[in-house]
């Protein structure tokens, strides 16, 4: 396998946590796991559960398929993404915001955001 040149990796700064070096074509979350880091919480790693939801504060990126229950079109336009589906085009600065939880109250679109204070955890898989 050809090792990509170091210059093409992007640096992702997770506000208040640390920096993830992200090789081309590798999602932010996958790069984090591969480096043995735990800057963001780890869930399904497949765009579904939303625990790795972030706001991109600065930089350009592309995304893969994600659950609309976690990132709808409006949120996507505001720079919200799931780190497991986030591919940096430039260096990024991101903030962990946790999964989107619809309120139990029927008929309201209001949501709250889960605390991410426990996100230094890692799976033992």
């Amino acid at each position, binding site marked *: 396998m050809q090792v990509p040149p170091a210059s093409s990796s992007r640096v992702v700064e997770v506000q208040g946590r640390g920096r993830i070096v992200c090789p081309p074509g590798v999602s932010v979350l996958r790069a984090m796991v591969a480096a043995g880091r735990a800057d963001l919480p780890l869930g*399904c790693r497949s*765009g*579904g559960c939303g*625990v790795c939801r972030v706001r991109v504060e600065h930089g350009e990126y592309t995304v893969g*398929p994600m659950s609309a229950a976690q990132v709808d079109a409006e949120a996507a336009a505001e720079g919200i993404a799931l780190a497991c589906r986030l591919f940096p085009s430039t260096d990024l600065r991101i903030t962990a915001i946790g999964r989107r939880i619809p309120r139990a109250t029927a008929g309201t679109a209001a949501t709250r955001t889960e605390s991410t204070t426990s996100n230094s955890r890692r799976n*033992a898989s």
Partner: protein
Amino acid sequence: MTITGVMRTGEVVIKVVDIDAAREHYGERVGLIETLRDENGTTYYKAWDEHDLYSIVIRPSDSPGIGHVAFKTVDDAALTEVTDKLHELGIETTDLPAESMPRSGRRVRFILPTGHEAHLYAEKEQCGNGMPLHNPGTMPPPGTVRGMRVTRLDHCLLGGQDIDGNTAIFRDAFGWNLSEKLIDHESEMTLVMFWTGSNKPHDIAFVRQPEDNRFHHASFLLESVNDVYHAADLMGYYDIPVEVGPTRHGITRGATIYFFDPSGNRNEVFTDGYLHYPDSPTLVWDTSKLGQAIFSQDNTPRQSFLEVLT
């Protein structure tokens, strides 16, 4: 035990965001057998040793999670009988005509107290397991058993608020037994309930969650612990996201791996466990032994296992 009335969890519909990736996952990696596909992309699978035409259905959607879960009754009379019991319990039902799910007979739809859509049905076309019915031999044609070597859909675990409310359905209408439960060791609130309608440790389970209609996992039965290890090797080879590698549950005593499909729905491969009979006492675990209850080799719970659902 004599299986009467509602036989099993016979069908789970899983919503997927990327249908092509999901087909690769369920068809090629897990190794289920595709039997039908409709114009919307909905794809129907069976595990090799099931006779019914399908048990796992993947349906395109903008978000992952569960579509519905369906329970098969022994015959149409049992379907009517269980429906009457639901009505006696005050559960509203809707009749669905034959073919509302393909090659399947009439259905009765209702909503569980945990918010999940459930169906009862008595009829579904059978296509067999690849072996003759007369002098069947001991194995299907080579190549039939593929991928993770799944033999059957085993059970599913669903999340919602009123898991106690489901008791009326499963105990009183279905006549199933509570094989095990996990309770909070201080408040004694029930956190997870395991229901069986057969000799298996569970056919469906429910975990208390702040949101209704949530999907924790669908579980696929394997023949042996060797096959669990083989599945783990495949997950590594294909870089499938694994939550917990081969280990054993305290609850059910089953050997397990949890992993995720490409839309983030949790899957499990499962084998072993004990035999349940109607006179088997309900086993109770409490959260002072949470680690052992869930993963009994390292006795350590995983945060994601408790919090990640679709």
